[in-house]
């Protein structure tokens, strides 16, 4: 006797199958629909047959490789939730106040410890150590930025995107004959590759420094460091009638617009047309027709349908197509938000993301994984630095809008996570949420009443923004823990903690004042990227968020410091003086530790590291100007920006957190220990090159604690 459900399903199937011949009688419209439907049924049927035929062979293959691997370990599923920048003191405080019940339960029934971070405590560095189980000089990531010693100019540390090596010049065009160069700079072996080689499935979502995506047997979506369509790390745009706002902007693309009646005609700045010998930026005409009565405006991008956007509302992800030479199309996607219809119109556009529906660059492994997620869950943000902190800094987004956009991004990632958990009941699921990092960067002043930014602009949001953030993350942990199977293990971790960023230290100004860095004759200050630095009289310079480089002979193009004893002595001298740097007379030390790379690193890429890594004191960080090679001005100055919390300080002051559903054998874990621990849980011996050590005994955690979540 057939069950009613199956009977209905069978009937529907027959109806659908029989529906196909109908178009012959009701014309092309029906033809389109039913032909497509028929093809889908046919293809599905073929795939089903193929799957059934192939399954026994796959089963045997898995039995030989994969299943044996699962049998070796006590655990079948490991879930790693990365909450970038979760600060242990805050987590501990909120747990003590009973505000984080799920994390508190993990701590009680499993384990909790502060997690030692890397030197320096910067996300790409720390997460690369998580990925590889090694210290930075083995994975070659030391900051967001590296520098080219031939030019003293910065490079992105994580990846290189270059033109194709072979091209054919044809008039004004340059036809590529090979693929463009996309090269990841992170070295060593990610632990999910080791798992994949042993037949253990992994789904890796948005872990930093995974662009270009790793080639391994598993699924991956790139995270932090994946570029936008313009090749940058995120260039937002804002359109405004406020000339003053355009004049003082520092980041993004500011477009001064003029209204004619209710119509504004402008352009959306796109990627360069790399098919041209002399690439030029492609621009897409954008017409904005304001409908004040309806409370919004009609937006029309050339070649795209009109859509209405209400004031103070984000548009959905909007596909945009830029037409390059020779008929090539570059597809992106972005969201718009009209901050104000008047008296001065102002509209924000997110950075142009690579369209996951039709990716212009590889952002997933395999390539179709990104497309699959887009088709299943809808378009999503693909930019590595997803949350637009700079737009908030610039005033292109207000705080409420920033939070709305950030949590919308977070919801997209949660959707991906839920899908990954459902599809990977055995194996590893690892995801990093940068929500925690971004919101703390931008709202930490709400926890610090003495923060200079509060003097520049009073708080507008509830002071509980960060507490709410932690509660939301606790909810997430609860939902994931609730779905954990009996042979599952959950790790919740952050790569570093967070502290207030009140005062910025311009390292290059200090080096200049102390005679280590010289400017060309007649100059008292230098523009960005050492524009007016006299390299022949310069002995050291600072670049990035904590790096200090010697101007070394034989390494830098115009080096002045001899390697060996001279360099060693200079490093010691600078370190000593920096440790003596006081904010004001008898005030706190601005620097608590200076790390010599020769003392902290031992890997093969040590030579690419800064010579000294500055460990700033709590409340301090590299100043905005100093990071970009500006020389001049005060050495220490207030940080008046909304970006008011940071972690690029002495790593000893900003450990992360590690919660586990398992009882761990050590109480002083390092971020490098997570990879060997996961390998151990799957019964795989960690390779000797890993610096981390497993936090569980080989093959025998005494059974994972059964930690189930509690919904809020």
């Amino acid at each position: 006797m057939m069950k009613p459900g199956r009977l209905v399903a069978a009937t529907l199937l027959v109806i659908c199958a029989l529906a196909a011949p109908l178009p012959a009688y009701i014309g092309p419209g029906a033809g389109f629909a039913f032909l497509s439907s028929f093809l889908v049924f046919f293809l599905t049927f073929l795939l089903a047959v193929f799957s059934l035929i192939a399954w026994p062979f796959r089963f045997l293959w898995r039995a030989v490789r994969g299943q044996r691997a699962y049998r070796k370990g006590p655990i079948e599923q490991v879930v790693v939730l990365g909450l970038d920048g979760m600060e242990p003191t805050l987590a501990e405080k909120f747990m003590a106040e009973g505000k984080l019940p799920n994390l508190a339960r993990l701590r009680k029934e499993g384990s909790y410890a502060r997690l030692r971070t890397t030197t320096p405590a910067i996300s790409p560095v720390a997460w690369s150590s998580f990925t590889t189980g090694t210290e930075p000089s083995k994975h070659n990531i030391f900051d967001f930025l590296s520098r080219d010693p031939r030019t003293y100019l910065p490079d992105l540390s994580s990846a290189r995107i270059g033109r194709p090596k072979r091209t054919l010049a044809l008039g004004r065009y340059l036809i590529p004959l090979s693929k463009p160069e996309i090269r990841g700079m992170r070295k060593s072996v990610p632990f999910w590759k080791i798992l994949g080689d042993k037949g253990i499935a992994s789904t890796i979502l948005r872990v930093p420094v995974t662009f270009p995506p790793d080639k391994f047997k598993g699924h991956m979506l790139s995270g932090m460091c994946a570029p936008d369509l313009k090749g940058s790390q995120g260039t937002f745009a804002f359109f405004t009638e406020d000339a003053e706002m355009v004049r003082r902007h520092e980041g993004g693309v500011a477009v001064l617009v003029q209204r004619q009646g209710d119509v504004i005609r402008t352009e959306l700045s796109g990627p360069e047309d790399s098919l041209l010998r002399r690439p030029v930026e492609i621009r897409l005409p954008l017409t904005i027709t304001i409908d004040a009565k309806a409370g919004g405006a009609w937006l029309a991008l050339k070649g795209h349908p009109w859509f209405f956007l209400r004031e103070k509302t984000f548009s959905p992800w909007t596909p945009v197509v830029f037409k390059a030479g020779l008929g090539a199309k570059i597809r992106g996607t972005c969201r718009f938000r009209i901050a104000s219809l008047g008296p001065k119109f102002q509209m924000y556009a997110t950075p142009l993301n690579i369209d996951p529906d039709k990716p212009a660059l590889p952002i997933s492994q395999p390539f179709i994984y990104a497309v699959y997620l887009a088709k299943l869950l809808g378009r999503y943000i693909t930019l590595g630095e997803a949350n637009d902190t700079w737009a908030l800094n610039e005033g292109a987004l207000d705080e409420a809008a920033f939070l709305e956009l950030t949590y919308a991004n977070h919801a997209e990632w949660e959707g991906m996570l839920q899908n990954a958990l459902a599809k990977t009941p055995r194996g590893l699921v690892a995801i990093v949420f940068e929500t925690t990092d971004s919101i703390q960067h931008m709202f930490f002043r709400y926890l610090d009443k003495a923060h200079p930014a509060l003097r520049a602009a009073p708080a507008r949001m509830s002071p509980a923004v960060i507490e709410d953030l932690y509660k939301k993350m606790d909810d997430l942990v609860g939902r994931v823990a609730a779905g954990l199977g009996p042979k599952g293990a959950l790790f919740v971790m952050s790569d570093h903690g967070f502290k207030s960023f009140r005062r910025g230290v311009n390292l290059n100004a200090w080096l200049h004042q102390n005679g280590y860095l010289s400017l060309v004759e007649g100059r008292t200050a230098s523009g960005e990227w050492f524009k007016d630095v006299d390299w022949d009289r310069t002995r050291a310079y600072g670049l990035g968020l904590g790096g200090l480089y010697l101007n070394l002979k034989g390494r830098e193009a115009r080096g002045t410091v001899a390697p060996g004893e001279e360099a060693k002595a200079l490093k010691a001298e600078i370190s000593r003086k920096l440790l003596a740097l006081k904010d004001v007379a008898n005030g706190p030390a601005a620097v608590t530790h200076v790390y010599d790379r020769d003392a902290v690193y031992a890997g093969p890429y040590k030579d690419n590291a800064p010579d000294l890594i500055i460990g700033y004191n709590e409340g301090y960080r590299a100043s905005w100007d100093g990071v970009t090679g500006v020389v001049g001005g005060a050495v220490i100055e207030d940080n008046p920006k909304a970006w008011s919390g940071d972690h690029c300080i002495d790593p000893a002051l900003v450990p992360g957190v590690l919660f586990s559903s398992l009882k761990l054998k050590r109480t002083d874990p390092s971020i490098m220990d997570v990879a060997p621990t996961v390998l151990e849980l799957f019964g795989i011996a960690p390779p000797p090159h890993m610096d981390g050590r497993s936090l569980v005994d080989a093959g025998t955690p005494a059974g994972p604690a059964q930690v189930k979540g509690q919904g809020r």
Partner: protein
Amino acid sequence: MPMAIVNLVFGGIVGAVLWPFRTLSPWAGMVAVSFLTALLMLEVYKLTSNQAAIRRAKDLIKAHLYEMRLYKDDMRITLGAQRAILKANLSYLAANLKPLAVMIVPLVLILAQLSVWYDRAPLRPGQETLVKARLEGTADPVGAGLDLEVPPGLEITAPAVRIPDLHEVVWRIKAVAPGSGRLTVRSGGTALGKAVVVGDGPLRRVSAIASRGSFSKRVLYPGEGPLPAGSPVRSIEILYPAGRLAAFGLNVHWLIAYLVLSIVFGFAFKGVFKVEI
């Protein structure tokens, strides 16, 4: 009367579209009509369909096809994906019901008009065929006293055959010379006219049946006006030879040609119309 107006309008439109092609291969007119129909239907489809729902259903189908590829080692996921594909396909079909309901009306009328041009070919000079008069079920063909008169260019080659079981009277006629006219069936005092065409042009309007039947017959056989009431004759049919659309030595049914061409044009121009199908 309203149906006569509708037939007049649609007949006029289809006739006007085909008029420039009447001396060319029948394919030329078929391509033109298919092309214009496809464009019309694309616009109708765009206006009447839930484009978002169609897009979503198609995306889900594609997603689960990718899913089968990505998780090919996992039979549970593969089967789940197949189930999801079938479900999404049903959603897709459901989303198509409204535009189909709207489009079916003009399409049936267009198809009926096309059948007048493509379903039958005119009699060629020298060709013989039958003329059938169908009577009411209660009428006796033997006692009905029906006579057939043919216009110049046609001749009756055999006397009437009366078939009581089928309530039919059948004549054999022969085309003698090209031309068009009307043959007349007399029933008592009533004269019933029926158009007739003899010729060898590539594309001619040929009405096979004159009827005073139901609404559906008026829709499906729009080639000429209805027979008057008051006589026992329900319809008069000339058994014209079938129309021919030859391609690569094969005879293609005009309906299939129309279907394929209109679908091809529809898919080719859906991007121009920005319509999700």
